[in-house]
């Protein structure tokens, strides 16, 4: 389920619409340029595939089943620019046809899933040269970043999220993220047996990727700071009331000690910062872990040229 209309504060959805619209416009042009024209039907059909794949139940133990979100899978097979466009097309179709997610909130949903989810999910894949850890982490990070962004946006909009629910959400996100990572890896491996050569050769750490990472981080913090700086009223009392600020600071106390001292009088800033920092910390943590995991054995899973 995506964020519906009527949930986000005006400044939040406006900011995210303003961020997402030109980004998608740019990516659409880039995807169009990068590909020859046969990619238009391909991208549309792969978007429909994601809908269809969500009908498949994946048993993940204890009688529960998971579903594939697919942002990371798309970015590994079509490349991140095309994957962003396909995810945007999926989200817009869900908002229009299935009333899943709002129209004004489309910018927020696109930002969370089609931009952050796709590009942050693609980074470990590219950085680790497309090996198994990279694919798993790609799925994990893709889902985690989308979910945390959505939660931070709701919190920034003053939707009260009590500490217990916040903690519960974090746990659920982590479980979903692990499932997404595992499913992405399993589907990629199945795909590699069925149709070798579909996976794209991941590019190494290039200047472009560095720029993308920088841009993503700048966008994230920019958005957070913009919202925070333009919206000091209301949020303050709300944050205190709901205890989110306390919860968030407690959660990120150790790594954020310095910042906390500086911003302790602005709970709303701490809150937005905590959201962003949360993503960054998880991301860096995952990268460090993956480095350990893959040191020594670097077998790429299917990096064949297309």
């Amino acid at each position, binding site marked *: 389920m995506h964020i*519906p*209309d*009527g*949930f*986000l504060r*005006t400044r939040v959805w406006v900011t995210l619409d303003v961020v997402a619209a030109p980004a*998608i416009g740019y990516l659409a*042009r880039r*995807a169009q340029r990068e590909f*020859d*024209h*046969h990619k*238009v*039907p*391909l*991208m*549309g*059909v*792969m*978007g*429909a*595939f994601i*809908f*269809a*794949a969500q*009908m*498949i*139940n*994946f*048993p993940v133990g204890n009688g529960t089943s998971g579903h594939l979100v697919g942002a990371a899978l798309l970015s590994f097979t079509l490349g991140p620019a095309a994957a962003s*466009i396909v995810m945007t*097309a*999926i989200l*817009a*179709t869900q908002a*229009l*046809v*299935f*009333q899943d997610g*709002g*129209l*004004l909130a489309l910018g927020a949903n696109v930002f969370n899933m089609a931009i952050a989810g796709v590009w942050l999910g693609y980074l470990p894949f590219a950085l680790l040269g497309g090996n198994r850890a990279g694919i798993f982490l790609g799925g994990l990070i893709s889902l985690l970043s989308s979910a945390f962004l959505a939660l931070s946006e*709701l919190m920034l909009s*003053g*939707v*009260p*999220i*009590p500490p217990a*629910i916040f903690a519960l959400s974090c746990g659920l996100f982590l479980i979903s993220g692990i499932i997404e990572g595992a*499913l992405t890896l*399993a*589907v990629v*491996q*199945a*795909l590699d047996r*069925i*149709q070798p050569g*579909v996976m794209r050769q991941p590019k190494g750490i290039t200047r472009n990727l560095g720029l993308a990472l920088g841009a993503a981080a700048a966008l994230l913090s920019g958005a957070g700071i913009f919202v925070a700086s333009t919206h000091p009223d209301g949020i303050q009392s709300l944050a205190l*009331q*709901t205890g989110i600020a306390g919860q968030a600071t407690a959660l990120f106390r150790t790594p954020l000690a310095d910042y906390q001292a500086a911003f302790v009088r602005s709970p709303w800033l701490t809150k937005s910062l905590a959201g962003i920092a949360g993503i960054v910390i998880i991301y860096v943590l995952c990268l460090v872990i993956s480095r350990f995991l893959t040191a020594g054995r670097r077998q790429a899973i299917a990096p064949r040229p297309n």
Partner: protein
Amino acid sequence: MRHARIERWSRVASPLHRRHATAKIIAALVMLVCIATLTRQSLWCCALYLALLATAVPLSKLPPARILLSAAAVLPFALCFALVSAISGEPDRAVMLLVRGYLSSLTALLLIATTPMPELLAGFEVLRAPRFLLQVMQFLYRYLVVLMEEASAMQDAAGSRAGSIRALQLRQATGAAGVLFARSYGRAQAIHRAMVARGFDGHIPEFRTHRFLVPDALFAAVAAGLAISVRLVLP
């Protein structure tokens, strides 16, 4: 199936269906912005918006009860957050989440249920949405049903061997997803081949049947005007 029902609704003939997609998109967006900025003091506003949207339903000649019910699809999600708000001691906020969520959903539903998808995409193109993205959406929408049928046929086939769909192993399920991916990929190539065979050279020709006429402009102006004036009169 929601998708099929909305497709059927969008092909009905009515004064609202006849309006240009761009006019309806503008009207809907203005309405949505007005709703999204409602605060907890403006319950009267909410009632007026509901009345405004409710009068649009008979204009669309669609089954009123089904439309009003269909828009409630957002409520389970909204209810979760409303409940949390209510528990946190903010009943006003809880009510507003539900009301804004429902009104927004009804607005969007009226737009999509009175505008066939191709026209809607053309309407967004007039508003400068990236053409490339809209084409991807067009293909996505076209092949949604085809691939969903393929997926359910695969589930049936897998289920008939495994005893039941629920009995599928993780490995089989991921294999099925892989096969579905490969088939979708192959289908995309076949579609491209069929397009090329008919002279496709990289751009999909436009085929406009609708022109933006004076009644369309009037509709957009009246609908947007009503939505805004409700906010102006009742702060």
